[in-house]
């Protein structure tokens, strides 16, 4: 009986060897395929449990931490925490195990979770020294004083809308406010139910859409602020700020009429007015006619030079496209020969993001040179040594310096005619307001109130765009948005930036 027993013993050994060979194949040769399989949640879970980098801003020389982590005792090991959550939520975004990430948390995820190639050497040294890999830090261009002022001005009035402020010389984004905002903290809770509750409260259960970043992810009809684009095109075409334009009270457009806001003649003048006066009084007929005289091509060309129609701008969060035309594929075209009249005054199909509108005034402020708007000031290694620094990026000249200076003077006149709080005797602001009609029944739908401005006029340090989705049918830009804009400007200038 021993012979078959020995053979069975050999067979048993063979079975074990077969298992070993198969395990070798699975765990050594196929290991990478299985490890990287899209359905394998282990890698994602590992990144969630890594010490995520900080998001910070600087006020003066003092760093202010917007997002950091707190060590916990559970399996994810670190809890993402936001100081001043709602104030900075449009910038930081959120970081959730269940719902992914948004805002900067998503756009700079590779830096923050430490997987970016620029952190490779540090990861390697972490491996050797045996400490857990950590994420890099992101420092922002945001000016905390201006951000806070803008947010408080919006929030204290219960305004729904957005404020964007730029440094016109560098393109640094100084303010990015969207209201109503939300607190990202509960979305990063390690408790799945708390996450779900918060998520539903911010989304399907909330018509105010607090998680929508109105500054870059929503576009609005710009209304009269778009007259700046028409004026720029006219100045570039060789006209001057003092050249006469029509002051008529109505223009026949197709079957209807285009009229001024006060329904009368511009400046009560039956002949003509200067372009400066027309802008200061925001006369619709003057700019509609001016645009029509320039023609579709020059009008659209000027809009494009300001960055309208760009569909791949990232700051580093993606910015939705701003358009003159109706659809994504007709973004930079006018649908018929009459479209230019209404488009010139920022109605019809024109839609701009608040960031885009801020870019337009920043470009005028910067003597016509457009700078790429950027939110990230620098990227820091876990030990706070600098990995990459801020780089200004010129996107070319949208208009000549002399045209820009004339337009600035026109805007200074416009500011003089604009009411609202926050005016200072010692500060010259150049601005334009806008009240954009919206909806199918524009006369009975509350408009979007705009205020775009830069200051100081002779040496611009901040350019701002404010949009308020007003609740009042009779609202105009001056009343609502100007105060917010001026508060932002004042705070930004006081900070010395």
């Amino acid at each position, binding site marked *: 009986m021993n012979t078959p027993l020995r053979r069975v013993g050999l067979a048993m050994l063979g079975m074990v060897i*077969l298992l070993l060979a198969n395990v070798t194949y699975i765990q050594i040769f196929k290991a990478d395929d299985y490890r990287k399989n899209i359905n394998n949640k282990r890698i994602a879970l590992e990144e969630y449990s890594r010490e995520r980098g900080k998001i910070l801003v600087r006020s003066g020389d003092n760093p202010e931490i917007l997002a950091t982590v707190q060590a916990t005792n559970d399996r994810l090991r670190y809890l993402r925490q936001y100081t001043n959550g709602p104030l900075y939520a449009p910038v930081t975004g959120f970081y959730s195990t269940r719902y992914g990430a948004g805002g900067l948390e998503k756009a700079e995820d590779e830096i923050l979770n430490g997987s970016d190639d620029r952190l490779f050497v540090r990861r390697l040294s972490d491996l050797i020294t045996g400490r857990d890999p950590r994420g890099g830090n992101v420092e922002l261009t945001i000016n905390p004083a201006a951000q806070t002022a803008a947010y408080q001005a919006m929030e204290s009035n219960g305004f729904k809308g957005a404020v964007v402020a730029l440094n016109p010389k560098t393109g640094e984004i100084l303010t990015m406010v969207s209201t109503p905002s939300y607190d990202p903290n509960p979305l990063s809770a390690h408790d799945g139910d708390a996450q779900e509750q918060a998520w539903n409260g911010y989304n399907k259960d909330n018509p105010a859409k607090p998680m929508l970043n109105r500054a870059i992810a929503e576009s609005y009809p710009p209304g009269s602020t778009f007259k700046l684009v028409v004026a720029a095109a006219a100045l570039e075409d060789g006209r001057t700020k003092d050249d006469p334009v029509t002051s008529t009270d109505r223009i026949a457009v197709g079957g209807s009429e285009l009229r001024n806001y006060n329904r009368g003649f511009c400046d009560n003048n039956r002949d003509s007015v200067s372009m400066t006066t027309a802008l200061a009084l925001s006369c619709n007929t003057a700019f509609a006619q001016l645009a029509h005289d320039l023609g579709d091509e020059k009008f659209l060309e000027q809009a494009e030079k300001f960055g309208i129609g760009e569909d791949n701008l990232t700051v580093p969060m993606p910015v939705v496209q701003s358009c003159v035309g109706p659809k994504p594929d007709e973004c930079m075209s006018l649908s018929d020969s009459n479209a230019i009249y209404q488009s010139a005054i920022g109605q019809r199909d024109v839609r701009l993001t608040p960031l885009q509108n801020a870019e337009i005034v920043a470009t005028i402020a910067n003597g016509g040179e457009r700078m790429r708007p950027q939110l990230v000031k620098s990227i820091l290694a876990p030990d706070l040594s600098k990995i990459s620094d801020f780089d200004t990026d010129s996107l070319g000249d949208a208009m000549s310096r002399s045209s820009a200076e004339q337009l600035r003077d026109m805007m200074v006149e416009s500011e003089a005619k604009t009411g609202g709080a926050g005016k200072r005797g010692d500060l010259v602001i150049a601005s334009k307001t806008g009240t954009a009609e919206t909806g199918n029944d524009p006369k009975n739908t509350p408009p979007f109130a705009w205020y775009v401005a830069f200051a100081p006029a002779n040496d611009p340090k901040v350019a701002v765009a404010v949009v308020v989705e007003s609740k009042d049918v009779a609202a105009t830009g001056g009343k609502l948005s100007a105060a917010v804009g001026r508060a932002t400007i004042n705070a930004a200038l006081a900070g010395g930036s």
Partner: protein
Amino acid sequence: MASPAQGAVGSPAVGQGAAAESTTPTRRGTELWLLGFAAALVTGALMLVEANQEQTLTFRIVWYGLAFLALFGVAHVAVRRFAPYADPLILPCVAVLNGLGLVIIYRIDLALSERAIQAGREFNNDVPKQILWTTVALALLLAVLILIKDHRTLTKYSYTFGLAGLVLLALPAVLPGFIAPTINGAKIWLRVGPFSIQPGEFSKVLLLVFFAAFLVSKRDLFMAAGRRVLGIDLPRARDLGPVLFAWAMSLGVLVFQKDLGTSLLFYGTILVMLYVATERGVWVGIGVTLFVGGAFVAYKLFTHVQQRVANWFDPLATYNDIGGGYQIAQALFGLGTGGVGGTGLGAGRPDLVPLANTDFIVAAIGEELGFIGLAALLLIYAVLALRGMRSALAVRDTFGKLLGGGLSFLLIMQVFVVVGGVTKLIPMTGITAPFLSYGGSSLLANYILVALLLRISDAARRPQSGSRPRPVPQAPIAEAHTVMVERPS
């Protein structure tokens, strides 16, 4: 580790009347050292889990380790007393496997209870129950060693065992659903009060004892030549009985209980015993042919068999199907993530694999201890089974040989079926990993198996003179009037 002299010193006067002239070392000292080593390994594993999961280490772990050593120390003393010449490697191998199983079950408890807390659910830890089962199993080991002083006495009750085995096997299939519920698609459990038992686990050992006794008593019958076709000796048609019986029983398990794993286990083990008893390979050929036929018919008839095969070919293709490759894919992800060195005990995510503490416990070990850990584990199983096989070779009676060989093969067959299933070598059939997986029935049954192996190995190494019990006459060879024609081998 321990020198033979030391072993001899350690060899007890308490051994049942060890003859004075005996110089055969008992090697009990070696066993004790190895048990200490096993306890150290298990304690170390527990420390790693604690360090990785709780981030703190407490002195309490040392007490757990000592308690574990004490538990197996009792078993060791029992072996010294009742089976002094038993193989010194068997008990330490079992201790390592069982201890590692406890650590992994505890580790998965930690992960699952945290998930339950997050989801606001109640969670009952499995590890206290498994510790209880381990204690009961060791008591059972003791009982078997005390009650069965000589394995040959088992032959006297072989038909009783066979009948009991069959009844236990058939019970869940026959009984109504409230007492024999269908869990995970298989109807193999009995619910008794708060406990669920799998009677099939016990019938494995019982039927194996029966078959060993039966085959030994009828051995000559099966060795009788039948017709010779193409140079192969075919057995006589009427001697096909046992193999057909095994085949039918396995198919029955498959059809009525939908338990592929147990079915495969029975069939393979009985086939191997038939081969060992008759020393004729033709049985294996016939058996494999029947298996292929049965498997083909089962594949054609049963959708759950087709599903298993589809999941085996490409678990990722059926990943999202109901009853699809999700489980196996998760196990493979775990094994792949573990790679060569593993993530470290307590640092992986074995809880992502369903049934991580029972059928898929091997995937948890592969993930956290890596290829190295899994290979070591397989080698421990191999050592355990081969030591059993060695005892079977060394023991003097045919029943002991057949039983020892069968038990050893049964052990490795379980490992092959479950590890092969988890690692996609063969279709997943859902059985427990011996000594590792959570589950009382499997643990108790496998401890009985080990107790029998200890008994046989004791008989194999025990000096012949003096203490040797008078051989019990084997069950009389069938009084059949058939003329025996034994082929000269």
